[in-house]
């Protein structure tokens, strides 16, 4: 056993009292600050629930067809969504989708600028990378319970937790994509006398777009992976059904809701991937074999 060199209790008490202090004095302000996120999520959720099911299915089947010009993916999407409807999981699936979309949108807005910044400075990269490691490995309940104490239970902490968990791959892949743009291309653009902003938006980002899209795809998947955890702090949706199933030993309920999450994941994963591939072909950076 490691010798007890210091008494950790005062430290632990200080952390707990500090959190109580923040909750007492800043809880209201922080909650107001997060209000726009809640508005975004509620708006998406209301829109999705108000959309008739056939319109929703038609929209995503159409999207899948546009992405592949092929009947196979649309069929998969159709079957996945019909499964959700048949299993009486439609409403929960819409709540989950809303959470996923809101988290992904927010993650995109935050992550891409951070990724750009990281790619332009090694120092920033050195500082951000350990933070990303922390975000991906810290057990989520460790920061969830304090977030619930600060923001109150429900959608805000669920959304924040999902963003924390889902942003790192997008940040990493944005950075990677920008750094991997062919030096010769950069050299050439510099020779034409472009400014650094022109190079970023005209050359680097378009060339890195497939990698960035892969990052968005990963973020979507990670956001869906968080739905069960998010339900544990009051977000509702498919994850809540899973929790109920586990708690009551109703294996069927847990299994169907779990398969529902898989169906959603397949729909969104395949559609975003298909668009990524089309984009690669269009800008001619598809793998040259």
């Amino acid at each position: 056993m490691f010798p007890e060199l210091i008494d950790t209790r005062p430290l632990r008490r200080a952390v707990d009292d500090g959190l109580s202090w923040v909750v007492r004095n800043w809880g209201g302000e922080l909650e107001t600050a997060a209000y726009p996120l809640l508005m975004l999520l509620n708006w998406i959720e209301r829109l999705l629930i108000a959309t008739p099911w056939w319109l929703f299915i038609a929209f995503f089947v159409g999207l899948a067809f546009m992405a592949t010009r092929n009947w196979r993916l649309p069929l998969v999407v159709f079957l996945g969504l019909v499964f959700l409807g048949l299993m009486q999981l439609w409403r929960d699936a819409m709540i989950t989708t809303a959470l996923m979309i809101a988290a992904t949108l927010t993650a995109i807005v935050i992550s891409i600028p951070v990724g750009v910044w990281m790619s332009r400075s090694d120092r920033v990269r050195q500082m951000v990378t350990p933070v990303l490691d922390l975000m991906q490995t810290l057990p989520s309940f460790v920061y969830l319970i304090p977030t619930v104490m600060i923001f109150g239970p429900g959608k805000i902490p669920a959304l924040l937790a999902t963003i924390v968990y889902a942003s790192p791959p997008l940040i990493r892949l944005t950075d990677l994509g920008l750094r991997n743009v062919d030096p010769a291309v950069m050299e050439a653009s510099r020779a034409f006398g472009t400014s650094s902003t022109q190079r970023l938006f005209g050359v680097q980002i378009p060339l890195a777009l497939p990698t960035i899209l892969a990052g968005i795809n990963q973020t979507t998947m990670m956001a869906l992976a968080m739905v069960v955890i998010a339900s544990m702090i009051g977000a509702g949706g498919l994850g809540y059904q899973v929790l109920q199933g586990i708690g009551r030993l109703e294996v069927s309920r847990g299994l169907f809701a779990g398969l529902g999450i898989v169906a959603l994941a397949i729909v969104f994963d395949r559609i975003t991937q298909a668009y990524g591939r089309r984009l690669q072909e269009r800008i001619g950076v598809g793998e040259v074999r």
Partner: protein
Amino acid sequence: MLRKSFVATALIGLSFLPAGVIAAASTSAIANAQDAAACGTEKKIDIAEMTWPSAAALAHIHAIILEHGYGCSVEIVTGDTVPTSASMISRGTPAVAPELWTSTVEEAWEKGIADGIVVKLGDAITDGTVEGWFIPRYMQEKHPELKSAEAVIARPDLFPDPENGDKGRLYSCPPGWACELSTSALYEAFDMSGKGWNLFSPGSGGALDASIARAFTREEPILFYYWGPTSILGKFDAVQLDLGPAKPDVYACNTDTDCTDAPGITAYPSSPAIIGAASWLPKEAPAVAAYMAKAGLSNAQISKLLVYGDENKADAAETARNFLKTEQDVWTGWVPVEVAEKVRAFLK
């Protein structure tokens, strides 16, 4: 020595006598005081440490007394109501569940007792458990009319839902717990959705605790389901709302997913929290069973235990040691003098 105690307990093992009778029978049959202080079994006694603090502390208290007082070989295993009771009923392990809320697993547990696989050794909480709807005391002081559930339900504006400001919010129970069914049934029976309320599920025990801690820290209004004895009710000054009389048959229907009657209004019946054990334990270790039959604590004693743990950031083992050190009057009554001496010697 071994044979004698075996005969005595074989008789007890055959008929499922109440715990008090087991204690009396085994002490009278075993005249030798040495027997009463010996563990009696070579088998490892595994004690379930449940996920909530009171049960965890009780598990450690029993573990210390059994290991250092009776000289048993003891192991603590983690558990929770449903998995632990299921494992006790099907495989006879863990041997002891120091705070088992049998109302959650009533049918299976009754069947286990009837089949002779498990027994109830005693009550873990002597004066019954508390379960119901609570509001903070400062809310009642501001609005003295908020005494009963009806009075609170008439005022959803006092307990606004942050995600939907026009409505009130009732914090329900985590999903899958039996209290989720009973609380949802009451929500329906009171027609709370028609009276401007949302039923909010906090999703997990941790999130419910955090929400309550947040509301009390900020002196905000909150209407929540909770149960005791718990450190939350020990730490925060909450008052229980009057839900009227407890009607066991209405409650049984409310918590049964197959019952088709409309949910009715009833208070939560006090649910029994027992010390459950695999039936081999009283057969092979009668002295231990006799001790367990007496080892019940009151709500106030358990709350005190939990508040110590909470304020001193002590884990369950430390809370248990502190209890054994400071509350000697309580636990020395459960065990023979020699055992108490041995435990005291260990604590020094």
